[in-house]
């Protein structure tokens, strides 16, 4: 069943891919039929897979029946033994549910959203392929297989961001995502090497059992001695930062919004970007032994949370706002992991998966209604025209802002309480950043709602005339996700982070006795418990004041703090700084290497030097082939004489 659940999407992807390659010519009816078949196959596969995932969850997570399915061996070389295996424990089961359910919903939603696109089968194939890689990632039982899934989702992400490959900006964004991720992947790969160097294995079970023995080992890097586990964890975390768009490596995520909206919902909100969080949780037995690494995770997470939230407040593209919001929420998950509250991080990952996918798909629904307009300044006042979407956006935003009883309330609160409960300097930093970010989160969420749905419409007449509610095939997935955003928090609370937590997670997550932030979180004082809710409500209130009742104020404020605003509005100048620091020098070096290095040196020696010699040699060798039989016989006899002579002179 596990194998089926994982491989169904792959099979669906292959079938849909084959359809994408089928040339239908001008036959419209045939093409429509093919499109429909591709949609049925992939959606059916994913829905089945999702049902299986739920059954597996019941068996594995609730029944405490963790297992590993061995498929077959992959690489055997010296002491390196890697096999394909599906490792399913509570952590994986949770991830599988999130991945398959959200993916299934996005698949169904795409039927409606992509209905006008000429490349439906290709799109569906990519989506399913992505899901397969994601499942490979979460079920990996060794680091290399995880890396396989990791690279696979990166590839699918690249393909999907650049899905509209005729659009230059989409291509640029795809390349940017790929390259920035490459930096992270490089760290991940180095991390795997380090782990292999220390443990002589990449198998998770073997590593985890060996960790306590190697807890204080040092390794030498560039001549200095360092704590081995810290080095390994930091390198692995660089990988996680890349994939999860954390501060420094986040620049690709907003640009990735060039892809179709369902892609943003699936990959850049609910699943792929959370892979980093998953990886840190999965490797909790490693991270637990390195205080430094944990502190770094906490600081990076806390900083990202506040940093991305500030930018989100100034953006005007509806998808970009949500993208930065994702970035910020990922920061929450990371600092939860950083204070050893992995289960809280995963809990937020799950709830966030539902409500962020909901928000994205809702935004997609808005964009769809507005004839592909994404700029909020050109929206407004359309709540009456698309009431269902409006209501669903409310649900999503309430969940995101952490208002009781929506899912976000439970998961965000427990994270903040855990950060407070860690009683460390970094924990405190993360806590206050988190509170501030929570305030901003509520603020920008309502900024989106108010600018999009309320007030006077700023769109032009023609667009307004076409505004329509999305078809049912798009709304049903939204409703399913909204149900998740409503109830997931309440249902999951006890099992994930409450009293049943230890039993629920089993051995999937390891927390040392010295790290009891989660335990302390349950005994947090009153003000810690209700501060997040308070700032959330305050944020909503502020948004109402600024964008509903006194719409003139924002401009005034912006005028007052012009330099700060410009700074934030330009995303803290990260792109410009990278451009200056890395891209320009790289181009410069590249150009120089090309002109002098390659042109003069390598071409001089290579193509013009060495290869000329090679070609010359080749001509001579070819001339040996005369075509005369007796030449050939003579060559054979000569050969054997040479061989025997050689043996007699040397070998004997």
């Amino acid at each position, binding site marked *: 069943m596990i194998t089926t659940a994982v491989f169904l999407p792959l099979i669906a992807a292959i079938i849909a891919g084959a359809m994408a390659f089928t040339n239908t010519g001008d036959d419209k009816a045939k093409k429509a039929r093919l499109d429909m078949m591709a949609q049925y196959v992939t959606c059916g596969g994913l829905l089945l897979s999702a049902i299986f995932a739920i059954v597996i969850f019941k068996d594995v997570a609730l029944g405490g029946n963790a297992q590993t399915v061995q498929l077959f061996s992959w690489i055997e070389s010296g002491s390196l033994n890697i096999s394909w295996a599906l490792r399913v424990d509570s952590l994986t089961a949770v991830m599988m549910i999130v991945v398959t359910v959200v993916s299934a919903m996005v698949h169904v939603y795409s039927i409606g959203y992509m209905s006008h696109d000429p490349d439906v089968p290709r799109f569906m194939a990519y989506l399913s392929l992505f899901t397969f890689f994601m499942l490979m990632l979460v079920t990996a039982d060794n680091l290399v297989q995880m890396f396989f899934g990791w690279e696979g989702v990166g590839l699918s992400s690249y393909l999907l961001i650049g899905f509209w490959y005729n659009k230059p900006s989409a291509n640029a964004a795809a390349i940017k995502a790929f390259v920035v991720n490459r930096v992270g992947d490089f760290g991940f790969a180095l991390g795997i090497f380090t782990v292999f160097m220390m443990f002589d294995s990449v198998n998770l079970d073997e590593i985890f059992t060996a960790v306590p023995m190697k807890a204080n080992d040092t390794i030498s890097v560039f001549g200095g001695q360092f704590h081995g586990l810290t080095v390994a964890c930091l390198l692995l975390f660089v990988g996680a930062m890349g994939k999860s768009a954390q501060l420094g490596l986040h620049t690709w995520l907003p640009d990735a919004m060039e892809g179709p909206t369902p892609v943003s919902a699936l990959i850049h909100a609910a699943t792929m970007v959370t892979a980093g969080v998953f990886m840190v949780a999965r490797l909790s037995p490693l991270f637990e032994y390195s205080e430094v690494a944990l502190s770094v995770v906490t600081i990076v997470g806390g900083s990202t949370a506040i940093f991305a939230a500030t930018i989100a407040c100034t953006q005007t593209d509806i998808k970009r706002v949500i993208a930065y919001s994702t970035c910020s929420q990922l920061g929450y998950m990371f600092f939860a992991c950083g204070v050893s509250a992995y289960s809280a991080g995963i809990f937020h990952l799950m709830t966030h998966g539902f409500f962020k996918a909901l928000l994205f798909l809702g935004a997609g629904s808005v964009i769809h209604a507005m004839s592909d307009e994404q700029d909020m300044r050109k929206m407004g006042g359309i709540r009456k025209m698309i009431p269902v979407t409006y209501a669903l956006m409310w649900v999503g935003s309430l969940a995101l802002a952490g208002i009781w009883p929506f899912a976000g309330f439970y998961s965000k609160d427990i994270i903040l309480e855990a950060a407070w409960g860690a009683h460390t300097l970094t924990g405190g930093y993360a806590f206050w950043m988190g509170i501030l970010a929570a305030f901003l989160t509520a603020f920008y969420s309502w900024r989106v709602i108010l600018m999009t749905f309320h007030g006077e419409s700023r769109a032009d007449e023609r667009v307004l005339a076409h505004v329509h509610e999305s078809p049912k095939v798009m709304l049903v997935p939204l409703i399913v996700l909204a149900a998740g955003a409503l109830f997931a928090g309440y249902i999951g609370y006890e099992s994930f982070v409450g009293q049943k937590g230890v039993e629920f997670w089993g051995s999937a997550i390891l927390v040392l006795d010295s790290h009891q932030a989660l335990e302390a979180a349950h005994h947090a004082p009153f003000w810690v418990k209700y501060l997040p809710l308070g700032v959330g409500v305050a944020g909503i209130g502020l948004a109402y004041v600024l964008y509903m009742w006194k719409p003139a104020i924002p401009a005034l404020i912006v005028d007052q703090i012009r330099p700060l605003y410009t700074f934030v509005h330009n995303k803290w100048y990260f792109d410009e700084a990278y451009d200056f620091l890395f891209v320009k020098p790289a181009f410069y070096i590249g150009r120089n290497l090309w002109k002098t290095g390659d042109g003069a040196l390598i071409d001089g020696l290579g193509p013009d030097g060495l290869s000329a010699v090679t070609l010359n040699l080749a001509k001579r060798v070819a001339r040996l082939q005369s075509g005369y039989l007796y030449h050939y016989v003579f060559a054979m006899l*000569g050969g054997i*004489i040479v061989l025997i002579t050689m043996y007699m002179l040397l070998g004997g």
Partner: protein
Amino acid sequence: MIIQGLTFYMFAFIAIAAGVMVVSAKNPVHSVLFLILAFFNSAGLFVLMGAEFLAMLLVVVYVGAVAVLFMFVVMMLDINFVELRQGFLKYLPVGAVAGLVLVVELIVVVGGWHLSPEALKTAASPIPENVTNTHALGAIIYTDYIFLFQAAGMVLLIAMIGAIVLTHRKRSGVKKQRIADQLARKPEDTLEIIDVESGRGI
């Protein structure tokens, strides 16, 4: 013993000399004749070793069939042997050097002839007594060597197929006797009995 030794060297020498002549004779017919001579001498060597069956086989098959076939081919094909030999002198020095090196090496090999004790043991399987050559061969060729025997049969079959595939051509307009057709003919098909009135013709 001495006579045996002398006979051996005689046969061996003539065989080698004939072999050289096969290669160097100007007239191809002579070459074939020398080849026959070489065969006869090899047969003599077999007799010396007590393998009279093989000796007869050599004479019957090689001399009687193969060599005669060669002779036919050589005499019937119109090949310009002078032209074929044109490069002979040009390549002689190179060939001679190569041959010389090989000969020297083989002499070294034979000079260093020593058999491992194990090898001697295996090689010394005596010829069974009171059994004729033919009988002994038959006894193993259908038992121990059945595999090789059958495989050799397959090789011959392939050779036959190959020869037919490469040379057989359908010719149109050739009349052949079809026995089946002949047997299937019935009197009714071909025979008609007609009453002919006298004086009128048909």
